[in-house]
């Protein structure tokens, strides 16, 4: 995992609530057996028309917006546990997702792929979306060390589990950590039966 420290970028607003992982990556694209290339099909059925041509009104097809930060409506990532959703967002180039609420499994999947979900208040989310929609070149800065999100409409602190923060900053993953605890795990197993 690449270490995560500071991201400064423009942002892409997608103010739809309850974006489920079936929208992020539809099931028919889950047949691959590696993690690469899912970005091409990110938001596939919103991004393309029935005839396969790009849907100009969808934000990812707009020339106005770009960046490594996605700002999405409430309850982002609900539904299926498919990590393919996190792979698709990361593969497309997103490093940060901002929303007023994240579904549990998605949040964990994002963090396990070096992507930072930032939860902000509903009110702040609304303000930042309005601002970015009106000023597409506005830049946001995410500092994981200080746990701050700087935006033109104000700077806010965000929460992250201290252990997860450490993993993200150093690019560690849970596997190494769990293996380092194998003596404890073995001892636990021994008293099971």
């Amino acid at each position, binding site marked *: 995992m690449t270490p995560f420290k500071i991201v400064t970028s423009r942002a892409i607003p997608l*103010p*739809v*609530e*309850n974006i*489920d992982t*079936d*929208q992020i990556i*539809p*099931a*028919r694209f*889950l*047949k*691959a*057996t*590696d*993690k690469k290339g899912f970005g091409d099909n990110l938001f596939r*059925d919103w991004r393309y028309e*029935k005839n396969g041509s790009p849907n100009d009104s969808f934000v990812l097809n707009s020339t106005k917006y770009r960046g490594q930060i996605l700002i999405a*409506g*409430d*309850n982002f990532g*609900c*539904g*299926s*546990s*498919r*990590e393919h959703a*996190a792979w698709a967002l990361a593969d497309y180039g997103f490093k940060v997702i901002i929303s007023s*609420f*994240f*579904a*549990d*499994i998605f949040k*964990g*999947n994002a963090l*396990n*792929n070096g992507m930072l979900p930032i939860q902000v208040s509903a009110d702040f989310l609304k303000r930042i979306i309005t601002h970015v929609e009106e000023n597409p070149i506005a830049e946001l800065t995410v500092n994981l060390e200080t746990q701050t999100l700087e935006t033109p409409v104000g700077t806010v602190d965000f929460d992250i*589990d*201290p*252990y997860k923060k450490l993993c993200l900053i150093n690019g560690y*993953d*849970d*596997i190494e*950590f*769990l*293996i380092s*605890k*194998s003596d*404890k*795990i073995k001892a*636990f*197993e021994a008293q*099971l039966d």
Partner: protein
Amino acid sequence: MGKTLFDKVWDAHVVDTVENGPQILYIDKHLIHEVTSPQAFNELRERNIPIARPDKIVATADHNTPTKDQHLPVKDPLSKNQLQQLSENCKENNITLYGLGHEYNGIVHVMAPELGITQPGMTIVCGDSHTSTHGAFGTIAFGIGTSQVAQVFASQCLLLKKPKSLRVNVNGKLNKGVTPKDVILYIISKIGTNAGTGYFCEYAGDVFENMSMEGRMTVCNMSIEMGARGGMIAPDQTTFDYVSGRKFAPTGKDLEAKIAYWKTLPSDVDAIFDKEYHFDAEDIAPMVTYGTNPGMGIKITEHIPEYNDASFEKSLAYMNFKKGESLIGKPINFVFIGSCTNSRIEDFRLAASYIKGKRKADNVTAWLVPGSQQVAHQIQEEGLLSIFENSGFELRQPGCSACLAMNEDKIPRDEYCVSTSNRNFEGRQGQGSRTILASPLVAAATAIEGKIIDITKHLN
């Protein structure tokens, strides 16, 4: 302060606590399937890490399998490759696989309970969000992402923060025609799709106490649709009777000892939950959904609410429904009875009881997809198959099928499907398809009539 059912099972599985951080939770059973496991196997292979406890893993093929001609080679090359990789990975790592055509093959959340793999007091994970189903046994069971599948492969443990506790109480007597599916659709319609996020839910009250194991599984299955990682129901005599005698269930003295332990699991009377809801059984009626998330549900006799909200309107536009409209009388061309929510024997008994002696409407394509080979056999043995066939229905072979439409079982664009599955997301059952979630009873009635009817008027 007393402990909850969840606390008791959780605490019994904590290996260690990271200072200022998560806990290491031991996993008793790890269920895997073809779609969310290949990348985890690759990860371990690339890092040269062995699988810690292959004996605690059980694999099945379900998400991506055809429901017709399963004896023939799988046509879609990508699906075929995924299934092949699962077989190879299991073989290489000594993992039990109930692959396509095996007498125990089926949807992971149907086959594991019916084989007695699922037992009270366990921790069970699977790379599938509806792992919550197994909570019906008083088990901590939840869905995980593929990175976590790799973690369990490597260590038989997961790093987790203990979730908060939620209890949903439903007491009273259920009305006629109200099934466990209606109970959970009703709960979600009342509390919303993210009321459970960050929580593990316990369902309590006499409605759940009086429910069969199949019904409890239907309820726990949809816990994830209200955002909860999992749902649980306290194990009781119904649970013990269901588990006893199953293939991998304990026997004799072991079983007695287990049951004695399982009896200690229910939440203590003085246990305190972080959040609690109470509902009256009498208020629940047969339900349908009208929107694109499972929280958008109404009683079949109610009208679509009239909210002014962009996401709500987007959802109605997708469904091509209007605010204030009733769904009764809506012509329906597709009906799906299946998925890990409603593909157990009881679901087919219920559908058959309505269908018996009637004819399927000509406009309707109805897919009846059993959850497992064992359910398929039971359907035949109990004589339900002939009821279905005489009424013009076709029974397909087990699998996830049109629940997520990864195989060929797709609902065409713009068509409505009354479905017993758990998700009505845009395009879930096929690009551009529109899903109306309902119970097997409502689905069966829709297939007979070719339109949505007020089921409460058609029950004797």
